[in-house]
């Protein structure tokens, strides 16, 4: 063991000077906790994986029937409607499980928080990693669907990792913010599922964002998931879908804003978590 002789001073309201370095030092714990959450999720392997795959698949079926067959909304270009829905559903499912699970993560790990020290940021972030693994697994149905429809991707698909990262960051900011507030104001627990349910219908998941009237489009893009979903569609559906730059820009700006807000709120409240929980 390396004996590093460092000196720590503990004082009220002392800003952690080495906050980020400390976080880096605890990266192993992050790996272990994320590993634990993933392992526990998929321990009863069949249920875990089947669930990750079935949920978006069934939602895709329902949305395709409702929005395409009944409401007769158009798809992006000539892309099959089901494929378009799926391309939007993947990032949305990720966003909603990430937010939902992260907001409860500190409370479910209250035992850890009141008994050991580590940068608290690790817990919600590790939880989001689990939703991320779900996302990666559900790409399997995407591939299967593309084969089924004999739909070949274009070079745009190469940009997908970029949007996956964007989806991650878009979830992280609000996730941290809500997580911190949820420790103090436990009522948030009841609000979040409602908000997410609502968000599913106002985000362009079951329909293309081109279905939104032009004059409302910019306002609509204040929802950061619009840019992410559009991006996913652009990558997956190739030339059938177009990137709407204003919405992408607003997503980027709002994501950065929420990251800043989330981290700030989290850091401000982090020190009192152990007393409150």
């Amino acid at each position: 063991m390396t004996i590093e002789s460092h000196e720590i001073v503990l004082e009220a309201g002392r800003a952690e000077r080495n906050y980020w370095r400390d976080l880096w030092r605890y990266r192993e714990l992050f790996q272990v906790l994320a590993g634990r959450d993933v392992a526990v999720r998929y321990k009863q392997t069949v249920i875990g994986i089947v669930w990750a795959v079935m949920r978006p698949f069934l939602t895709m079926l329902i949305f395709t029937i409702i929005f395409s067959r009944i409401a007769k909304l158009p798809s992006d270009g000539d892309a099959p409607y089901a494929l378009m829905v799926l391309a939007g559903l993947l990032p949305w499912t990720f966003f909603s499980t990430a937010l939902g699970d992260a907001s409860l993560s500190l409370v479910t790990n209250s035992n850890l928080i009141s008994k050991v020290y580590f940068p608290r940021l690790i817990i919600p972030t590790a939880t989001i990693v689990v939703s991320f693994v779900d996302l990666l697994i559900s790409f399997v149905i995407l591939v299967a669907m593309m084969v089924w429809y004999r739909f070949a991707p274009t070079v745009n698909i190469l940009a997908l990792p970029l949007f996956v990262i964007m989806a991650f960051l878009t979830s992280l900011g609000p996730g941290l913010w809500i997580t911190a507030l949820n420790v103090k104001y436990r009522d948030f627990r009841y609000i979040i599922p409602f908000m997410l349910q609502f968000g599913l219908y106002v985000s362009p998941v079951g329909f293309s964002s081109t279905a939104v009237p032009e004059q409302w489009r910019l306002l609509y893009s204040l929802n950061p998931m619009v840019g992410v979903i559009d991006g996913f569609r652009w990558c997956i559906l190739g030339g059938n879908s177009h990137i709407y730059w204003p919405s992408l820009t607003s997503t980027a700006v709002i994501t950065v804003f929420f990251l800043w807000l989330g981290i700030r709120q989290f850091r401000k409240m982090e020190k009192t978590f152990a007393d409150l929980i």
Partner: protein
Amino acid sequence: MSDTVISVEGLSKRYLVGHQAARGERYETLRETVTRGVRRFGRTALDMARGRQIIQGDTVEEFWALKDLSFEIKRGEVVGVIGRNGAGKSTLLKILSRITEPTKGRVTIRGRVASLLEVGTGFHPELTGRENIYLNGAILGMTRAEIKAKFDEIVDFAEVEKFLDTPVKRYSSGMYVRLAFAVAAHLEPEILVVDEVLSVGDAEFQRKCLGKMKDVSAGQGRTVLFVSHNMPSVQQLCTSGLMLSHGTALYRGSIDGTIAQYMSSLDQTSRQELRSRKDREGDGRLRVVDVSFHDERGNHVEAAICGQPLRVRIHYESRYDGQEMPVDVAFNLRSNNGILLTCFANIQTGAERLAVHRKGYFECLWPKVNLRSGSYMSTLFVGVEEQTADWLQNAFQIPVEEGNFFGTGRLVTRDHGDLVMDQVWTGAPT
């Protein structure tokens, strides 16, 4: 480099606690209910707007768990931290291990701290023993390489080789505790902070762990802070002591001095009180002078531990000289909010005749304490030959500490009422 590894200056910690205002016994008017509701809502909204902590209850009170505490600890010292329930020991350890922040004052720590406030923190029942060793080790601050290097030693220590790849939910409770202890015993930080964790687990294994920790501190000059109510183990393990009382340091010095100070403070508060109380009823043929608690083997203890046996000794002085006669000794237990929980009485058990001496004690053995941590008030009654001899309202309190009631290695905490019940769970198809 200085030899002082921990220095604490003027340390204070404040908690905010909410109280329910005392209600009229029977009913209150709607108007009162409404005004209180509105006032409470107003305060919550205000707190929320200011981003402050929201406290349940009608009035908020500040509570200083630590007050202006100062002391220093040198490298290689093994310090026993003792004090009564609520003295602030756990709060101090939580501050030192950075779990919570001080309200005032300052602590300087030189070296890597590992804290052990509970065994098996973060153990997950679905994961295997192997996975849990890595998980728990990482949580306690070991690096993966360190755990890997000590892995075989840990497994040997816990004696669970055969079950390494079994989920720990299939472990017997004993195996679970041993595995949890084994990881903890192999921590090698420069400063180790240990709260009452050793009060769970069987005696043999406890001794093994203490031995291991002692080797660590003696051999490698590591510093240990050790909180316990178990004076023999404190005496055995520690080189110096710190006694806390109501959040301040009453004594800092040799371990023997600290323990002596602690014992005398206990005597002062309980012993004289009962003897000198005037508000008693009864004809005085027998007077209770003291009540003391003992463990299974009869050693004096400060508090009961949930799940462990407890002997309650009711010491008296009387006019009789060893005659066996009909006596009626009873004490009841009330919870914090005044609810009568139960009553202990010799006549219920059929032991209606007991020997009464000039000076002596009646002992009630409670084979398995099934109260959650907290303090329980008791009223005491002694009748001799069907006449009240001594009757003391609120005669004494039984402090109860969290314990390993179900033998799972996890402490039963006080979140779900006052009582813990033995129980067996199964599942079956219908």
